[in-house]
């Protein structure tokens, strides 16, 4: 059985200079027991002070986190996590660590047809860009084990001036929107594509604005959702060190 996308819902909060504690995002409409429910949040950290990673909520499982980078002012933090949905799910309150002053966005989305070991390859990457009216962000390749898998790309970034005019997902992927605070603030977008076994190269996200100097902080989590199939072996998860700014780490 191939993995299928089953809807999304987004939340966007402006904490207004207060210290955010939580952002709650509800399940996508019609979420059914047994479906794979993913929640991701992306938060700016104004002031440049360090904070710890966003928590994995009780009953949830980590996919990947974008963690604060020492020495990077106004950096972002965030995390993607998942659970297998129960019979009646309500909104999940995601951690903000009492540290987010302004912008906090979240998205929740679901898949059906996933394997009991739902995640295959996972890559987390961060970058810093700026100075151009068009920015691109290239998620790393995924090693796909089975036909009928779903490749998922999450892009988070900080918008520092006027709203963007174009957000294009990687070629062949279908975009779904996460939250966006406006006009200055955080953005999170997702995209998905059914894929077959082999190396999958997602191509680029393209973000375009009619000004320069925007989208200076970028993060991505790219992962494979494995389909229900016999003979799918659990993957061995081997963290490796981050490869500095703009690099990626395969989990």
């Amino acid at each position, binding site marked *: 059985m191939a993995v299928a996308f089953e809807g999304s819902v987004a*939340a966007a909060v402006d904490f207004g200079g*207060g*210290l955010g504690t939580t952002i709650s995002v509800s399940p996508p409409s019609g979420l059914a027991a047994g479906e794979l429910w993913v929640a991701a949040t992306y938060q700016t950290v104004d002031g440049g002070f360090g904070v710890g990673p966003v928590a994995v909520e009780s009953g949830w499982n980590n996919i990947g986190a974008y963690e604060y980078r020492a020495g990077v002012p106004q950096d972002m933090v965030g995390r993607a996590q998942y659970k297998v949905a129960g019979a009646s799910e309500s909104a999940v*309150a995601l951690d903000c660590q009492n540290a987010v002053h302004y912008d906090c966005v979240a998205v929740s989305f679901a898949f059906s047809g996933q394997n009991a070991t739902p995640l295959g390859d996972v890559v987390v990457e961060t970058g810093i860009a700026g100075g151009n009216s068009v920015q691109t962000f290239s998620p790393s390749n995924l090693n796909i084990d089975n036909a009928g898998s779903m490749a998922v790309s999450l892009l988070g970034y900080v918008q520092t001036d006027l709203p963007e005019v174009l957000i294009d997902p990687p070629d062949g992927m279908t975009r*779904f929107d996460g939250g966006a*605070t406006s006009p200055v603030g955080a953005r999170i977008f997702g995209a998905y594509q059914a894929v077959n076994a082999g190396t999958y190269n997602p191509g680029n996200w393209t973000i375009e604005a009619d000004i320069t100097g925007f989208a200076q902080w970028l993060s991505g989590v790219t992962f494979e959702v494995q389909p229900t199939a016999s003979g799918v072996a659990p993957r061995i998860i081997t963290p490796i060190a981050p490869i500095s700014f703009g690099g990626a780490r395969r989990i």
Partner: protein
Amino acid sequence: MPREIASASQVYAPGQYGPFSLDSFTRDDADKIEVSATIESWPDVPFVAQITVALEDGSGFSVRVPGRPKNRDGTDQTTFRCSIGIPVERNRLTPGEQRKRDVRSAQAEVEVFESIRTALTVRAV
């Protein structure tokens, strides 16, 4: 119920206030739920209050309000404002369409830690 609840400036002693309930809005005439509080000689302490907002579908947030909240440029605020947008969804029944979720009510609660004078407003904008 209204789409805006506005109270005149008054002193709020420590304690729980609300819920302040809104329901006279739709996704077609509102983009967000906003809570604002005028800052009237608040004490210079880390937190004077905590604001919690929940939309009908469970979306929401919780934020601690500093005694001296700052604007992005570092200047002092005269009115503290926080907000949550009406959620955007891609419904499985209409997979090609993304639109605001059909949310028609919201509640806000305020827990005050230090006595403050403020004019509190909760509204759909």
